[in-house]
């Protein structure tokens, strides 16, 4: 069952020098309990992708098009809360109806009325009606969602472990209070005592002394801060956690330990996870699926196993050979020649072509689209490796 579906998502920044095409027509989906790794060089749009998912974008950034559907099982009593939002209704499999994207305009008795998007048509399409029993899942589109509504999705629905966990603590508040703050916001019915108990449990789970919650961030070591960040990310029982370079700042031993623990917790709580890293080896440790990003585009998406065995995109191959394997398999390191693309004026056609050893004329002219190379593997390349 899908939890998150990203469709055709583009997000650009406007800077003094020009428009930065940080995320360009990216699409993927994520099942519940599944973990996805996003990998790529720095500046390829991974972090932008993560921030776009949470809509934590600076003022000069704008989502140009696309959808981010955050799916939930349909429950009639919560239908009211979705009124007026853009949703993707997924009917029961047996039903045979196609899923419908549109604005939820009315609830009449046991029926939902959805106004499909105009999609360039001159005439507004007529509203579509679904009965409650027909619906399996409702995917809330996060892209057009208002900020106040989005705030409710954050942390409760999607939480995040930041790249710079060191600095994601406000130095003037106690660590426990900062976690408590999130819980009080999203779980207002839980009392302070209960919440504190929960935090203590989470601390134990991530391997911290529960008494540390009364301490200030500057009294923590780097690893402790990271663990506390993980505890905070878990605090509201989110359905999805985005971990953006969760261990970059830590030394290798701690890194490994924390990764293992995270993987364990994820399995234990049956959460979905998106890992973001420049290190494909790290990603391979923890994720079932890997997406490779290059120049703001998703160039390959496949199961971990498949990617390692038969990478389709030349970039994926290059990326894998740039890093030593964590498990210690010695491989010859191939340096990737050239510079990452300039996202303000990216190369025409395939963005990888200036650095690609297999580039042909067509690569310079036409932009490749994602195509299925084999089951469970898609890649965008004119000259795939297989």
């Amino acid at each position: 069952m899908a939890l998150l579906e990203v469709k055709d998502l583009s997000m650009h920044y406007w800077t003094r020098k020009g428009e930065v095409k940080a995320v360009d027509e990216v699409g993927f989906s994520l099942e519940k309990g599944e973990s996805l790794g996003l990998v790529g060089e720095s500046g390829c749009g991974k972090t932008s992708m993560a921030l776009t998912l949470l809509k934590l974008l600076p003022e000069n950034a704008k989502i140009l098009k696309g959808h981010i559907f955050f799916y939930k099982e349909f429950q009639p009593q919560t239908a009211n809360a979705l009124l007026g939002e853009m949703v993707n209704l997924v009917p029961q499999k047996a039903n045979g109806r196609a899923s419908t994207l549109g604005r939820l305009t009315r609830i009449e008795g046991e029926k939902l009325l959805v106004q499909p998007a105009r999609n360039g048509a001159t005439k507004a399409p007529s509203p579509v009606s679904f009965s409650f029993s027909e619906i399996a899942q409702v995917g809330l589109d996060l892209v057009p969602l208002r900020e106040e509504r989005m705030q409710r999705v954050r942390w409760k629905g999607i939480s995040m472990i930041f790249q710079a966990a060191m600095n994601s603590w406000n130095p003037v508040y106690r660590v426990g209070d900062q976690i408590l703050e999130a819980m009080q916001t999203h779980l207002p019915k839980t009392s302070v005592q209960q919440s504190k108990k929960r935090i203590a449990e989470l601390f134990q789970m991530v391997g911290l002394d529960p008494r540390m919650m009364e301490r200030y961030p500057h009294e923590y070591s780097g690893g402790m801060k990271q663990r506390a960040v993980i505890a905070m990310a878990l605090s509201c029982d989110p359905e999805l956690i985005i971990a953006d370079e969760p261990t970059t700042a830590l030394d290798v031993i701690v890194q490994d330990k924390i990764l293992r623990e995270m993987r364990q917790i994820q399995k234990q709580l049956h959460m979905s996870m998106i890992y973001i890293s420049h290190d494909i080896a790290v990603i391979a440790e923890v994720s079932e699926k890997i997406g490779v990003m290059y120049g703001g585009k998703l160039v390959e998406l496949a199961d971990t196993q498949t990617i390692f065995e038969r990478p389709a995109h030349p970039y994926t191959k290059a990326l894998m050979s740039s890093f030593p394997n964590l498990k210690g398999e010695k491989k010859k390191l191939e340096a990737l020649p050239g510079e990452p693309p300039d996202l303000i004026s990216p190369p025409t056609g395939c963005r990888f072509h200036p650095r690609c050893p297999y580039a042909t004329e067509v690569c310079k002219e036409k932009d490749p689209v994602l195509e299925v190379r084999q089951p469970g593997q898609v890649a965008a390349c004119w000259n795939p490796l297989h």
Partner: protein
Amino acid sequence: MQVTTKTLPPSLWRVRMHLWLKGMGQSWSTFRESPIGVTGLVIIVFFGLLGAFYPIYPWFMGKIAWDQETIQKEGIDLNIVYNPIFGVGNDPLLIKGFPQPPSLRHPLGTNADGPDVLAQIMYSASREFLLGMMAALITVIIGTFIGAVAAYYGGWIDTLFMRLADVFVLFPPIAFLVVVSALVQRAGIEMTHMLLALILGLLFGFGSITIVLKSQALTIKVKPYIEAARVAGGSSFHIIFAHIIPNILPLSFLYMMFNVTTAIFSEAALSFFGLLPSINMSWGLMLFRAHTQGWILGHQGAFYWWVWMPPGLAVTLLCSAFYLVGRGLDEIVNPRLRKR
């Protein structure tokens, strides 16, 4: 600066110059984006022109309005040829006695003693600029030098200057100036613009600016290229002047703007309270006269607006302008304030 030219080959200076110009160009384009800074700059240019064109004004008005021939034709004594600044009496072609409202002859009217308000404003403008710039320059030179030296050497030099800076931060500057002007008067010394600029420069130069510039210099001191310069055998003197100071100059320049504001304001304030008897014309003094003679806001209110409004606005606007430019520069110098 002469020493540094010796230590660097000329070609390097050309490169530096080029980089500097390029940097300036970029700074300018950043600055241009700040409407606040540009507003300030426009006001400064306006007053700058006002001051620069002062010598032309009497000549110009002499041609069209203060015509000597007319004066003679009217049979008026040449001994009272009109002095628009210090005023030997009223303009002979106007009714006497009270401040004359704006007219073609006197675009901003005259004050009660006869002189032309616009002429006084223009005459004072260049002096205010001079005072502000001199004071700010002294402040910045002292501040930059001490900041760089204290950061570079640290130790007791640092402690001494920082405690000294604490003391100067402690002095409420206007209060201190009031006291100093009283002492200076007593000693029979003429408090000219230059002396005032010197006092202001010293007062602010040893104060908070050194603290700010020192911390800026500290961040530069730990940069690798300083270490490289030291390893390459650069003398302390060379490192301070060729590496540290050029890098804290932008911030110094920013503080210079704020200090111009303070200097102009201080002069006006002291003049307004009659504490600078040796300065014979300034905007503050114009207000002092208007206030003591009673042309400022009596029960007839704003009636004689041309006597007190222009100098008051001039002080305020010029002070604001430098401050606004400072704010605009702040956005360039302080990258953390830049828009992304």
